[in-house]
């Protein structure tokens, strides 16, 4: 056994046995204890927040006045050119002094200063160049070069451009002297805000459609049904069409062609298929029959009273009777919602997800929410049910003018021409009639006549390409041409809503409510969320900008944005916080609404570097700061973690305030985290105030464009990357 000699203990442990015991004690090395890195980071953040609070009283007055790093006020107004005629005169000496030194700058107090230009400061008399240059302080920390032209000093960032979305404060300190040797008696600051960054990449250029619009393809006869049909139903994989004939026979036929198969010879009155496409449910002779399609076996459910309508939920089969909606639960059959007991009540249709029921009560068309038991009335008296959106969030009914599309609250209505409608998974509506067939988007745009002739009961296949129609006792199928591209991409549409929502919060919070769905309203009214729809108090809401925005899902379209809100006091940015907004656009709502919101901590803005934008593709992430950084602190200070906390990507590369991490393979929908450690320093040696974490999802391959058609875009898409505010 080795005995490590410790001079510290020479006079303490003189006995050999004592030294032996000490050696034994020393030999046991500690194992590493379990440590949660999130705890370590969270504690650091907590300490730094506490430190910011403590530092408030100890900061020199000039740092308070001139110090805070700006997060900006952005305006995306294209074409805003620097207004050179506005000159703010600042008097460095006391008013009335005989030796007034006047400073002018064309960008003082401007709020959308171009990124590619020097900061010009003009003096009204010759200045001593070395002392003046030495007296220039710029926040955020920026490495700059100086040049003079007569009495004008140009301050140029060596990185080339100014940082986007940033409030700059250029201070001429009291050390500046005139050529005559007179020192300035007080510092003066020029403040301005830069414009948002240019769009990192234009919207993808749509590819020309291989199919000319206005031509149906693959038209062929599926089945001759001289008795007519009462229902048509597609299998979820769009391979098979099921239908009930006028005589009550249930038959199926392959979409590609082939002979029809009789599944039930007669007496069938309602039909539904489960989400997997494995089982059909139908009503026959007062019972509910469940048919296992592949095996061909059936089981029968004998309801306690006569069933009228059958449907599927995720939990199994459901049906209506004269008095309510029933399903099979653990204890057997049970009523899950009652139907009105007065008037003439007729169940019409279960929504595709089985969560709602359309029915009529006398002349009223109603929708019953089977989860809450609440009912809403759609349209005017006499309105007829015409169909659902495939996701079950939208409904179609008749009006005097034609077809109305609405969400299940009866809001967000759109009127389409009269006809027999069918709503596709690709957000296209077919309108059939005796004389023609039209295709259009649910907002009534892009109306296109597909064909002349009789097209009754059009019914889209789940693939959004094929459809069936009925003409002269025969059931046909055809493929519709690809739909016109949307006027705006989902990301642009969502960006627009976020901008409108944020402007409303600043100017008219009541109006902001219109951009929240039920979940969103709960988020902003919860006492524990820390979210306030109206940002009040001092410091006050100065501006906001979008830090990131991405499409995170489709069906329904889902987008996530990180919005940075900047608070000011006496026109100086002093605090900031970020909100993460999740927006959802269902087929029923037809527009993005804020569905989820979370708020980060309120941070004080200091003189240290701040992240002002994050752009990412599947292979790289670019993080832009408002300050010049020490490159050697970036390598270990900016990292990307996957969902398991493993660091990914190549070593960061720093250039011109931007840190780029390449070599990534970000998967759409997967969670990742950008971490900027507090070891990162600006060129002045200041560590960033606190670790910065940003969770994001891998970018979608399709940039959120869920439309299969990609015919040429009518005009360049606006940039989604930045937002104006006021």
């Amino acid at each position, binding site marked *: *056994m080795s005995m490590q000699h410790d001079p*510290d*203990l020479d*006079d*303490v*442990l003189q*006995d050999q*046995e*004592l030294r032996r*015991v*000490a050696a*034994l*004690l*020393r*030999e*046991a*090395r*500690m*194992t*590493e*204890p*379990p*440590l*949660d890195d999130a*705890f*370590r980071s969270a*504690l*650091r953040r*907590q*300490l*730094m927040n*506490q*430190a*910011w609070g*403590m*530092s408030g009283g*100890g*900061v020199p007055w000039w740092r308070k006045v001139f110090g805070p790093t700006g997060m900006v006020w952005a305006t995306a107004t294209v074409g805003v050119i620097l207004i050179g005629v506005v000159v703010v005169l600042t008097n460095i000496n006391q008013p009335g002094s005989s030796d007034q030194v006047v400073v002018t700058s064309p960008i003082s107090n401007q709020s959308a200063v171009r990124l590619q230009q020097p900061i010009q400061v003009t003096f009204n008399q010759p200045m001593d160049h070395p002392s003046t240059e030495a007296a220039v302080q710029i926040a955020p920390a920026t490495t700059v070069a100086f040049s003079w032209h007569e009495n004008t000093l140009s301050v140029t960032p060596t990185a080339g451009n100014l940082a986007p979305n940033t409030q700059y404060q250029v201070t001429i300190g009291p050390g500046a002297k005139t050529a005559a040797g007179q020192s300035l008696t007080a510092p003066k600051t020029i403040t301005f805000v830069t414009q948002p960054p240019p769009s990192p990449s234009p919207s993808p250029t749509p590819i020309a459609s291989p199919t000319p619009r206005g031509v149906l393809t693959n038209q062929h006869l599926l089945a001759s049904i001289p008795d007519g049909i009462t229902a048509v139903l597609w299998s979820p994989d769009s391979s098979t069409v099921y239908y009930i004939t006028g005589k009550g026979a249930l038959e199926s036929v392959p979409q590609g062609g082939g002979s029809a198969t009789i599944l039930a010879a007669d007496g069938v009155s309602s039909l539904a298929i489960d989400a997997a496409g494995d089982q059909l449910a139908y009503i026959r002779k007062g019972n509910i029959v469940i048919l296992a399609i592949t095996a061909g076996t059936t089981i029968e459910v004998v309801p306690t009273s006569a069933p009228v309508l059958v449907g599927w939920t995720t939990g199994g089969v459901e049906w209506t009777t004269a008095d309510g909606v029933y399903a099979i639960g653990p204890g057997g059959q049970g009523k899950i919602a009652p139907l009105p007991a007065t008037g003439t009540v007729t169940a019409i249709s279960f929504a595709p997800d089985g969560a709602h029921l359309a029915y009529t009560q006398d002349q009223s068309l109603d929708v019953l929410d089977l989860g809450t038991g609440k009912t809403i009335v759609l349209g005017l008296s006499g309105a007829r049910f015409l169909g659902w959106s495939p996701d079950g969030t939208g409904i179609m009914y008749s009006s005097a003018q034609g077809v109305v599309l609405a969400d299940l609250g009866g809001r967000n209505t759109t009127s389409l021409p009269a006809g027999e409608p069918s709503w596709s998974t690709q957000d296209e509506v077919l309108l059939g009639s005796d004389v023609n067939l039209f295709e259009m988007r649910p907002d009534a745009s892009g109306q296109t006549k597909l064909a002349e002739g009789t097209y009754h009961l059009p019914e889209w296949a789940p693939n959004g390409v094929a459809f069936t129609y009925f003409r002269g006792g025969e059931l046909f199928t055809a493929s519709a041409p690809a739909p016109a591209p949307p006027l705006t991409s989902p990301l642009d549409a969502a960006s627009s809503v976020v901008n409108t929502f944020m402007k409303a919060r600043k100017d008219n919070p009541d109006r902001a409510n219109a951009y929240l769905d039920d979940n969103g309203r709960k988020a902003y009214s919860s006492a524990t969320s820390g979210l306030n729809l109206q940002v009040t108090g001092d410091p006050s809401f100065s501006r906001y900008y979008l830090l990131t925005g991405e499409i995170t899902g489709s069906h329904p379209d889902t987008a996530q944005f990180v919005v940075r809100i900047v608070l000011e006091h006496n026109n100086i940015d002093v605090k900031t916080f970020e909100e993460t907004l999740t927006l959802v656009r269902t087929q029923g709502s037809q527009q993005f609404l804020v569905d989820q919101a979370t708020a980060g901590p309120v941070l004080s803005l*200091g003189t240290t570097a701040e992240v002002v934008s994050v752009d990412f593709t599947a292979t790289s992430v670019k993080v832009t700061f408002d300050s010049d950084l020490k490159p050697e602190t970036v390598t270990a200070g900016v990292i990307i973690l996957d969902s398991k906390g493993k660091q990914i990507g190549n070593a960061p590369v720093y250039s011109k305030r931007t840190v780029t991490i390449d070599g990534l393979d970000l998967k759409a929908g997967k969670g990742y985290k950008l971490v900027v450690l*507090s*070891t990162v320093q600006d060129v002045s040696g200041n*560590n960033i*105030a*606190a670790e910065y974490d940003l969770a994001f999802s891998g970018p979608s391959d399709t940039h959120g464009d869920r439309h299969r058609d990609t015919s040429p875009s009518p005009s360049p898409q606006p940039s989604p990357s930045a937002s104006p505010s006021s």
Partner: protein
Amino acid sequence: MSDLQRDDERELVERAKRDPRQFGALYDRHFQQIYRFVYSRVREQTAAEDVTSEIFMKALKAMPRYQDTGRPFAAWLYQISVNAIADRYRTLRPSSPLEDFHNLSIAEPPLEEQAAHRDEIRRIWALVEALPVQQKTALVLKFQEDMKIEDIAVAMGKTAGAVKLLIHRGVSRLRDEADSLRPAE
């Protein structure tokens, strides 16, 4: 710690005293060490996190009053730690046995001797846990944390002589209570 490291640490401490926002660098430097020490005493992750948070929060708040006595900054953090753990012990006891926490793998063969040796170490550390608190703390800081006597004195708020006495008494008591630790003749 070299003179250069000591100068570097003094600079960090001075900056943090002037501006609490600079405390982050000290936190980064000492977190692992303090957390490990705390965990070794409370033996439960949540409790270790609670105590560690308390220690660094107290340290941050007390920074303006910190006086450089020439000893490492860590000694001051250990002082706060010892007190915080003592507060914790008034109501709680460690939940895991000590032998679960020490790496008892010994590099040298043969295997039978290794096993016997591991057993000795395990038992002697178990005896440490039964010592009076002051003796136990002194032994842990000396043999587990490998601190100098003068630094332990800072951490425990005692003189160096008092610490030496605690260590002597503690080790002597271990020797007396662990006759079985003697190798077979």
